[in-house]
């Protein structure tokens, strides 16, 4: 079945709604507008206003209401338009969703799913181009998913809804139009394991979300240069699949981390540290990183492109860790 990432997410929501009467979707413009990224278009007509619930511009209010509804026995999917607006609900996400289980000594769990768009690349300037899933991955008590493929877009939601704890799903804005084939019976996927998206032996490109297509394109180019790059899609930023990270490094002995987040204090820093801790003697070169430039994402196309990881930058980083003579030098 030919489909898009957007449709795959919509199918996942539809399936969840049909499967469990306790599931409902709540957020800004999810109903009458059809979702700001058109993910929920048509669902209001199908499920009605009670279950496709338009919320006011009130992130702390409706995210907190999602937490309360989860405590009260429902299975809410809360859509926050973008990660940028989720800051208005940080208190509820960080102080309540992430902590209630622990502070209640295991008595109160919060089976809540929060979906939000993330990332830059659409020329919508700094306040709409943040890539801060790595921030959320800092917080114990939350699970952070970054589906980057059609299979994951379709398959992570149900697994997330079955999880007894709060799960945040970050959908990169550039992925919504991603097109491809997806089996009609595409099912749930695990949400705690990374996935090898391309096998390789010479260098590992470790990435997630919106940077995956770029990493795959870079691997393609490297192949033309005679370099076999392995691409590891983290899929889940918390808990991080350390084992998969170390395995790929043990196989290729070279690592390039591609993360749209800013370099300082980033997820890429964490991954690099884990490689140092767990596979230092396997490394044949220092770990390289391709990150977002440390500026608020600019509006003009050329500056924005320069601020975000691109295929060329990934190629350069890969070449820098390869032994002299491997791979064409730019």
């Amino acid at each position, binding site marked *: 079945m030919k489909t898009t990432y957007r449709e795959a997410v919509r199918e996942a929501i539809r399936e969840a709604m049909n499967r469990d009467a306790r599931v409902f979707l709540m957020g800004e413009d999810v109903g009458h507008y059809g979702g700001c990224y058109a993910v929920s278009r048509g669902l209001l007509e199908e499920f009605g206003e009670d279950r496709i619930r338009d919320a*006011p511009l009130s992130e702390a209010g409706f995210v907190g209401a999602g*937490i*309360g509804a989860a405590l009260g026995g*429902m299975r809410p999917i809360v859509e926050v338009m973008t990660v940028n607006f989720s800051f208005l609900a940080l208190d509820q996400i960080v*102080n309540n969703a992430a902590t209630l289980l*622990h*502070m209640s*000594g295991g008595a109160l769990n919060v*089976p809540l799913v929060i979906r939000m768009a993330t990332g830059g690349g659409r020329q919508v300037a700094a306040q709409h181009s943040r890539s801060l899933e790595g921030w959320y991955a800092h917080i114990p008590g939350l699970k952070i998913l970054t589906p980057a493929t059609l299979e994951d877009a379709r398959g992570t939601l149900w697994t997330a809804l079955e999880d*007894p704890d709060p799960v945040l799903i970050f959908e990169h804005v550039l992925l919504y139009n991603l097109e491809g084939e997806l089996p009609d019976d595409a099912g749930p996927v695990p949400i705690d394991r990374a996935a090898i998206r391309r096998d390789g032996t010479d260098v590992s490109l470790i990435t997630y979300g919106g940077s995956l297509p770029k990493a795959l394109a870079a691997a393609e180019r490297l192949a033309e240069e005679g370099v076999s790059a392995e691409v590891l899609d983290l899929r889940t930023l918390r808990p991080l699949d350390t084992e998969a990270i170390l395995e790929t490094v043990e196989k290729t002995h070279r690592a390039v981390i591609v993360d749209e987040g800013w370099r300082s204090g980033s997820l890429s820093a964490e991954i690099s540290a884990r490689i140092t801790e767990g596979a230092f003697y396997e490394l044949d070169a220092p770990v390289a990183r391709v990150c977002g430039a440390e500026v608020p994402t600019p509006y003009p196309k050329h500056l924005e492109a320069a601020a975000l990881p691109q295929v060329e930058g990934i190629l350069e980083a890969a070449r820098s860790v390869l032994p002299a003579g491997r791979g064409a030098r730019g």
Partner: protein
Amino acid sequence: MTFPPSPPLPEREHGLELLRSMILVRRFEEKCAELYGKEKIRGFLHLYIGEEAVAAGSVPILGPEDSLVATYREHGHALVRGVPPGRVMAEMYGKMEGCARGRGGSMHIFDAEARVFGGNAIVAGGLPVAVGLALAARMLGENRVTACYFGEGAAAEGAFHESMNLAALWDLPVLFCCENNLYAMGTALAISQSETDLALRAAGYRIPAWAVDGMDVLAVEDAMRRAVEAVRGGGGPHFLEFRTYRFRAHSMFDPELYRTKEEVARWKERDPIALFVERLRAADLIEEARAKEIEAEVVAEVEEAVRFAEAGSWEPVEELSRFVYSERPAAAAEGR
């Protein structure tokens, strides 16, 4: 502020029950202050002394199926709700026998069975959660009322306004119980909020709202009964502003520079316990012997709670990382 005349005294046994409840909260809290001095209780400790009539008069109106959300000044609510004093005290100690295994402490009393959902240490943080509990009740067709207790300081927070709007917009069965003790930590209502009539502000969201004398346990009870009936009857969200006063500092770290001794003394003349005892006495509903008996019973109960907490155990350090994520599958977590 003038309030309508206080409701007539109830029958003797009920009156004594209300009194007992207030005394339990007070003695428990006084014991906590003492134990804090002995470093048995650590962290932040916010005492409810002076405000007992609010919890004692309002919480028992809720049914067992109803939900309760509170702030960090919630020991009284938990006790009146029926969480065993020993378990509350053990929680204060941080002992494993506490109602949240000691992981929450004074500011985070939880009890799933009693439907006490916090204990929230973020001002106004519990309001959206209460709205959500009410939303779930509505969607599941359960006739539950969610009572949400918070201080007047919360009315300055965005979450307050967002919650009022959502609750009214969606017509949810939530009862907002504002405990207006006049000070948000050390900042007076009058110097921190443009409109100090909180009931009026709730009314701005089309939520029926009343101000209630929070020092009069019977007035509290009467208002709460009407409000809960209205919410349960499908009347949508309601708002009660209980006008009260804390006799002690905000927390144990508070040097109380922001108010005069005279002001505190004036309010103490309206001590909810003393006022109520006076009324009971005047109506011959309590004798000296009975008053002493209640006092002795409560003191024994608090002592027992302390013994329970003292005898409690510390969670093994090996369990540090438990309850960051659930240990049970979602299926088992259903049906709460």
